[in-house]
């Protein structure tokens, strides 16, 4: 990891009243990495995601994507900077069709406004066609080829997870943050998903992954960081982190030996 980091998180803290959800967390994700973020429930993993994507204001610290500061920016600025995410408890636009969900994801990369839409200018029409085509390509890419006309809320659970990824990909991210993307999936679906992640990485995308599935993390991630009670207690290659006494203590309880 000698190349400059794609994502640099520096001494980030987040407090809710008296509760410190994140305490001085720093980490850096390199280009093309699959970086895992693990830890027991309530460790602050999703809080860190929400801080990075602008849903929460930081209490302290800085976040940079390729040197561009993300802290203090609105969620839509962060997406424009190239940082997309999915949600732990799936947040699709349930009453829009699957294809429309992905089309919404093209929003930050397109321009047409009210005038273009109302007058149907050639530019706006060409853009609309491009949005449509790109959305179909992405649906096919994640394996939802013939589900475009189904309402997102009516898709099966696994397909909803896939659709969320397609929608995030539509924003043309450089970094994609996935919050428990294989939770509740069976082994076959998990394998398909990890294949998808490897394909995405091969296409030049950097992945940040919150995951509980130890096997998936071990197989897939280049590096992992472990959070516990809002602090980073370990970072490094999965095999090494797995043997770290502090990590074992955090997961199994007991005193740190």
């Amino acid at each position, binding site marked *: 990891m000698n190349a400059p980091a794609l994502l640099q998180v520096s001494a980030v803290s987040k407090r809710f009243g008296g509760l410190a959800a994140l305490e001085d967390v720093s980490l850096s994700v390199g280009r093309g990495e699959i970086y895992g973020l693990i830890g027991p429930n309530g460790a602050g993993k999703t809080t860190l995601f929400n801080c990075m994507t602008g*849903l929460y204001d930081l209490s302290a610290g800085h976040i940079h994507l390729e040197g561009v500061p993300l802290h203090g920016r609105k969620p*839509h600025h962060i997406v424009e900077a190239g940082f997309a995410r999915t949600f732990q408890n799936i947040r699709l*636009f349930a009453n829009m069709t699957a294809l429309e969900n992905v089309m*919404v*994801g093209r*929003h930050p990369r397109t321009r047409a406004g009210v005038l273009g*839409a109302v007058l149907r200018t050639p530019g706006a029409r060409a853009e609309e066609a491009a949005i449509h085509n790109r959305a179909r390509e992405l649906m096919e890419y994640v394996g939802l080829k013939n589900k475009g006309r189904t309402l997102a*809320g*009516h898709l099966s659970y696994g397909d909803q997870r896939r659709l969320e990824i397609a929608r995030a990909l539509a*924003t043309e991210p450089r970094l994609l943050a996935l919050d428990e993307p294989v939770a509740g999936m069976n082994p076959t679906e998990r394998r398909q998903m990890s294949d998808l992640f490897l394909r995405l990485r091969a296409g030049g995308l950097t992945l940040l992954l919150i995951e509980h599935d130890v096997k998936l993390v071990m197989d897939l991630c280049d590096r992992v960081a472990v959070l516990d009670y809002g602090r980073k207690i370990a970072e490094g290659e999965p095999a090494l982190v797995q043997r770290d006494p502090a990590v074992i203590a955090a997961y199994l309880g007991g005193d740190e030996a």
Partner: protein
Amino acid sequence: MLAVLLAALPFLIGAGLGNSWVRVLDFVLLYVLLALGLNIVVGYAGLLDLGYIAFYALGAYLYAWLASPHFGLHLPFWMVLPLGAALAGVFGVLLGAPTLRLRGDYLAIVTLGFGEIIRIFMNNLNAPFNLTNGPQGMNLIDPVSIGGVSLGKSLEVAGITLPSTYLYYYLFLAATLLVIVVAMRLQHSRVGRAWAALREDEIAAAAMGINTRNVKLLAFAMGATFGGLAGGLFAAFQGFISPESFTLWESILVLCMIVLGGMGNIPGVILGAVLLTVIPEALRYIGDLQRATLGQVVVDPADLRMLLFGVALVAMMLFRPAGLLPSRQRKREFSAQDGVAEQEQASLYDTKA
């Protein structure tokens, strides 16, 4: 076919039901305009607005200020109508800006307050400076005049006399068709999808790179613009406006049109506006009917109107919760056989670790 029918409609209604019904037809079109405008805010963007009639009032009052003896101004309608729509649009943003963080019930209360504030201002701004002539309202507003032909007087064309209400019908029809096209194109565009995303899940919309603040303000502004346009047409048509025309009841009525017809669906919204304008007029005949058969009016048609209104809304909630003509998507959303599958899934993804 439809074009011929729409063109012949005032003659058919005038011949069949009398010319007073052509006037009702004009009001139907005004309410269609209002309902389509409110549909952008409520149906597309999911922002519950109970003060929508304020924008109608602003459009109407601006028309009266710029084209009546009140200030001695008599600007032509093609200048005044866009100005009224623009003024309403600006006020839409002014209403939207402080309410950006509010949703649902809270937004409804604030917008309700806004609607009342505008009406009360119109009611009281006759002193110290007489801006609105207070509760007496403003009179002698210029009719729309196109190429020197005033729509306020009947017109003789090729031996056929077209009364003023017929002429306004064609003007309102043109405005309605324009607004329908605008609303449809907006719905199926990048902007319309952003509104739908906002309605479905504001946080996910923001995480998809949508500037939720701008998109909300745009929805308020677009809806208000249509309301302002309808208001200007109303002022020109009536020749007289007063704060009484812009009460909370009117806001609720327009909202009911949308809910009854099918929120978010243009044909549904139009149907709702037609029904809720025509039915109360038709009920007036019940009074005549009672006088003819019973010799006196036992049940006041106005009371009956409210009663039927309530019954209609309750029946709708029970039998057609998505509206009479729901959009393709809302129909699926409310459809029963999918409910089970959806519940099963809800238990999966609603759990929060």
